[in-house]
């Protein structure tokens, strides 16, 4: 790994560790290997959002050309958000693409991702299905996001109705996550979800 990248990451790692966000539990960072090429990030779901109380893990891969190119970051924790793929965890955020600037750091990037959870950008979606729901039935979106946060990110709000519907499909022999995706996609209408799953 190019010397400059490793040097930067070491310094940024220390910067994150000393930051008040780490002290406040908003973000966390840990090393995956000794070569400083891969890290694991963690952000807390921001207050007053459906993600509140959840903890989201991020995979961070540092390219050799860092900081001239941005780090590659994706959600490892499944999340229901217009700008994050519900399938791969890929994030649609300008500073991770063409708006990357060499002075940005892991700390600022993690905080930007956290801010993205508070302020979605449905007009530039990563997941079209989620974005459509976000625009057309915001209340249902909120509940779905809360449900996913509860199931995958350890969030506090369990939604009884949703859990029941998922259980129904599980009982029919459907994989739990597959069932949840289908239900979420069809606005929790059991019939349409079932139809899609068995078609």
């Amino acid at each position, binding site marked *: 790994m190019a010397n400059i990248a490793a*040097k930067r990451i070491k*310094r*940024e790692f220390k910067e994150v560790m000393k930051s008040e966000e780490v002290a406040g539990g908003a973000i966390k960072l840990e090393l995956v290997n000794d070569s400083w090429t891969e890290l694991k990030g963690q952000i807390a779901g921001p207050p007053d959002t459906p993600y509140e109380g959840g903890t989201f893990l991020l995979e961070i891969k540092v390219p050799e050309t860092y*900081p*001239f190119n941005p780090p590659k970051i994706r959600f490892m924790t499944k999340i229901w958000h217009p700008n994050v793929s519900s399938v791969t965890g890929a994030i649609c955020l300008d500073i991770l693409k063409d708006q990357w*600037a060499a*002075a940005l750091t892991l700390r600022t990037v993690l905080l930007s991702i956290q801010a993205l959870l508070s302020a979605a950008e449905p007009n530039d979606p990563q997941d079209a299905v989620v974005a459509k729901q976000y625009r057309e039935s915001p209340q249902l979106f909120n509940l779905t996001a809360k449900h996913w946060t509860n199931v995958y990110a350890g969030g506090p709000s369990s939604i009884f109705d949703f859990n029941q519907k998922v259980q129904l499909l599980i009982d029919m022999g459907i994989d739990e996550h597959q069932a949840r995706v289908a239900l979420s996609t069809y606005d929790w209408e059991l019939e349409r979800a079932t139809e899609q799953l068995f078609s």
Partner: protein
Amino acid sequence: MGFDIKRFQGDVDEELICPICSGVLEDPLQAPACEHAFCRACITEWISRQPTCPVDRQAVTSSQLRPVPRILRNLLSRLCTSCDNAPHGCNAVLKLDSLASHLVECEYNPKRLMPCEAGCGLVIPKDELAEHNCVRELRALIATQQGKLTDYQQELTEQRLIINEHKRELALLKEFMRAMRVSNPTMRALADQMEREEVVRWANSLSRARVTRWGGMISTPDDVLQMMIKRSLSESGCPPHIIDDLMENCHERRWPPGLSSLETRQNNRRLYEKYVCKRVPGKQAVLVLQCDNTHVDEHMMVEPGLVMIFAHGIE
């Protein structure tokens, strides 16, 4: 790329850190409007990918980058750092601005150039000294030199060929001009100038001569003597268009009024010293060319010059 911050004594101010490499600024440049500073190498690399300031994304091109203010340079130069060769044992602590000069002399520099003491005369990096073998190195040196020599010889041959070709072409051109000048006044002027320049070039190639005994002058040389002088002139590169005129002017019957008889010659003896004389190679004879003697009175000079043959006394 900047200096590793761990090399510095005490805390380094955040303002002196490059936002790209996170090292201490090395040879810094700043963006024009926002004045953010970066190492030259870092910002050049960044701008080659994206023409913006890496901190605030304002548009910047590499030609707009400016040196940082003196105060920043001074702050940087005062920082105390360890030597690059600290891992090799150098304990020096230096101001950043004297680091470069220290590195040149640092004894611990594994790449410091040392003369071989075994006598081969080569200068080698210190860390290669142990492995150094005079015979092997010198043989390698000879091999490369010989390679170069062969290359140069080949080049020389090629250049000679080219020169000969050019000479042939020039001769043809001259021939062509000679034919043209008969009918065309511009060509005549051009050709005349070329001929004059040719004479000057030839005159400059001859060495100066000094006549110690003007009395030894032969004013009526015979044909045999004239032939010898003519051959010598021709061998020295005398332009063919003046050689016959010059040879005509080796006899007093063609000399200017001031030289044409024994009497006038004796009257004008003191003017001889003004002549700029050129040696006719290998002969007791001098050329007094008009182009060398524009300062001499008209009655002492003829076109294109005089040939004076002596019995002795030419140096």
